[in-house]
């Protein structure tokens, strides 16, 4: 056996010494009130019935399709889709009119990282729910905090619309694109 193969074997052997999987799962479960947005399902898709209160951006950005849409649903939630960072301003105006503590912001390469920003620690808020290219938001967001909708500048990157949990006001005006986050050094 070559020395390189001994090294490979040694690493494989040592990997078997992993431990603490259950502890990690327990920590993730305990953190759910803070970070449970991904697992939600608090808003059943079938319960969303549009009431006709729809505000949609016009074809300012070409193609004839709306660059954004803000729709109030019968259950009080609001469904948002934003297809272009240029639509962030008008979309935010509509969100403010609906009284939601939600702010759409662009993801940029030079924005400070959100890490360390004050995240809400309680569980008395309803997580957003993403369906396709839209995100449905509950008005139940704690006072003094804002849920951020992250709009990607780059095409063909998933839905192009992400969201955060409630972050302490004043809400930032941008989010650091993970692809440009030095903390993670994601390759471009």
């Amino acid at each position, binding site marked *: 056996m070559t020395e390189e193969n001994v*090294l490979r074997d040694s690493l494989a052997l040592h990997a078997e010494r992993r431990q603490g999987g259950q502890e990690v799962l327990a920590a993730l479960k305990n953190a759910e009130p803070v970070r449970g947005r991904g697992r939600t399902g608090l808003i059943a898709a079938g319960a969303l019935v549009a009431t006709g209160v729809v505000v949609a951006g016009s074809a300012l950005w070409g193609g004839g399709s709306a660059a954004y849409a803000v729709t109030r649903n019968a259950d009080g939630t609001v469904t948002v889709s934003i297809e272009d960072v240029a639509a962030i301003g008008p979309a935010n105006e509509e969100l403010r009119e609906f009284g939601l503590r939600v702010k759409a912001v662009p993801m940029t390469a030079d924005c400070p990282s959100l890490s360390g920003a004050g995240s809400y620690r309680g569980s008395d808020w309803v997580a957003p729910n993403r369906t396709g290219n839209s995100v449905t938001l509950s008005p139940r967001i704690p006072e003094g905090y804002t849920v951020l909708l992250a709009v990607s500048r780059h095409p063909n990157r998933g839905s192009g619309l*992400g969201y955060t949990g409630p972050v302490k006001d004043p809400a930032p005006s941008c989010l650091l694109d993970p692809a440009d986050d030095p903390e993670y*050094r994601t390759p471009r």
Partner: protein
Amino acid sequence: MEFDDFVADRLDPLLRYATVLCYDPHLAKDVVQEVLLRAQQQWPRITATADSPSAYVKRMVTNEFLSWRRRAANREVGASLRTLDELGPPTADRTRHYDEREDMLARLAVLPRRQRAALVLRYYEGCDDAEIAAVLGCRPGTVRSLVSRGLATLRIRSHSPADENSLSLTKEGH
């Protein structure tokens, strides 16, 4: 993919990777836990923007390992010494049936962190120079140097001409 599904699928491979990276299984658990808690918080953003959430989180683990050791050097040293003591001295006599793989692990444990990360990515994850460079945030030439230096410390003769050339250049540079 929902975060719960990701964890169910990737927790064990991440723990294995972190264990060989950190050497200390306790530290590896802490690193993975810290990363997953952060990933859970940012999951919608990660899935919306990262081409491969799995690769993305693995990079997070690598960088957490590198920064964790910088932040908690005292703790890390203590943990490594404890683990080394459990394994026995690095120069243990083979006639005492000291497994050569344990000997290799003991030597691997004292490598500088970036060298160790490069070797783990090469020999455990099977990454090429470009992939390692992407994870470590450096150039492929730097990766070759890290791997060569690490192998030299481990007293391993690589069968890759690129590694040998890199080591020669490094030595000539001094």
